[in-house]
């Protein structure tokens, strides 16, 4: 049962990764190319004699093509699998939500906790932005933010379930959301800021890159959430159809 869900989630995730690749290729790659051109220009200007060129281990064409594709499809499969596991826990435990709504809700909350909240504090950076000296600290801060955000979201959903028994589903969810946002705000204020954007880097290019990054994730998470819910309801309907057709028809 859970194994089936997991497999389904990962397959839906591969599909989502494919679409996210199309989006990233179209809307993201121009800004990656811009940043790499900026980086090369800057390093040429710094060392006029040259000599310190970084060796190209993987060609740009591969990075922007097969590499990007592989990265997004694998990441998509992982996200799909994690959403499937969350779905296994949540389905039937969140009031009277249908499987389709549960899947959409999990994808939305996952997108908020895993993408939006960490990205608001530590936004995506194109190449050329970010100093190599601080990569360890930046990575630690990013993953600390990510882990905290996910743990807080799980705690908030559990709180919402508790409160729903006493003050109703809508009020419970509202209170839990306020608690979540308040703690996130404190976390944002407490964690250090990172400012490493080169002064001459185009703000518009940076903005467009970050919007593209948010967009890649939006495509990925929404496709997983919607497709997983649709396939799961379809499978459940087929399973139930032969036994009580009338009931299934009435539900539609």
């Amino acid at each position, binding site marked *: *049962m*859970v*194994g089936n869900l*997991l497999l389904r989630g990962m397959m839906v995730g591969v599909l989502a990764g494919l679409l996210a690749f199309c989006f*990233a290729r179209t809307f*993201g*790659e121009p800004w*990656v190319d811009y940043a790499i051109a900026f980086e090369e220009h800057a390093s040429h200007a710094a060392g006029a004699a040259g000599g310190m060129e970084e060796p190209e*281990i*993987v060609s740009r064409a*591969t*990075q*922007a093509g*097969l*590499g*990007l594709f*592989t*990265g*997004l499809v*694998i*990441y998509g*499969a*992982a*996200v799909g*699998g*994690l959403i499937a*596991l969350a779905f*296994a*826990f949540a*389905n*039937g*435990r969140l009031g*009277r939500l249908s*499987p389709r709504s549960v899947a959409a809700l999990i994808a939305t909350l996952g997108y908020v906790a895993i*993408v939006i909240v*960490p*990205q608001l504090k*530590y*936004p*995506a*950076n*194109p*190449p050329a932005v*970010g100093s*190599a000296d601080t*990569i*360890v600290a*930046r*990575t*630690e801060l*990013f*993953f600390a933010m990510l882990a905290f955000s996910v743990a807080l979201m799980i705690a908030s959903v559990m709180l919402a379930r508790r409160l729903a028994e006493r003050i109703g589903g809508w009020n419970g969810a509202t209170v839990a959301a306020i608690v979540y946002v308040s703690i996130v705000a404190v976390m944002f204020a407490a964690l250090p800021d990172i400012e490493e954007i080169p002064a001459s880097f185009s703000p518009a290019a940076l903005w467009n890159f970050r919007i*593209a*990054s*948010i967009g*890649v*994730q939006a495509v990925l998470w929404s496709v997983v959430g919607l497709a997983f819910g649709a396939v799961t309801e379809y499978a*459940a309907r087929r399973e139930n159809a032969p036994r009580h057709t009338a*009931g299934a028809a009435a*539900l539609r």
Partner: protein
Amino acid sequence: MTNAAFATSASTPSRAEPIPVSKILPWAVFGGLMLVLTVYFVGAEEGATSLIGGSVVHEFVHDGRHLLGFPCH
């Protein structure tokens, strides 16, 4: 968790039965671990930390890593 299962099965027979947590847990632990490790290889291997030598993985998934918002370099 057993009382939660009873409550839902009694009140709403047509809704999805929750899968018992004991059945999800092994999948969640091993599957979750594998999936998180997968994300690690796309998102962080050979950036700040490295499990295998060289920088081929990093360079190969370079663009995806930037566009997914992971700190890269």
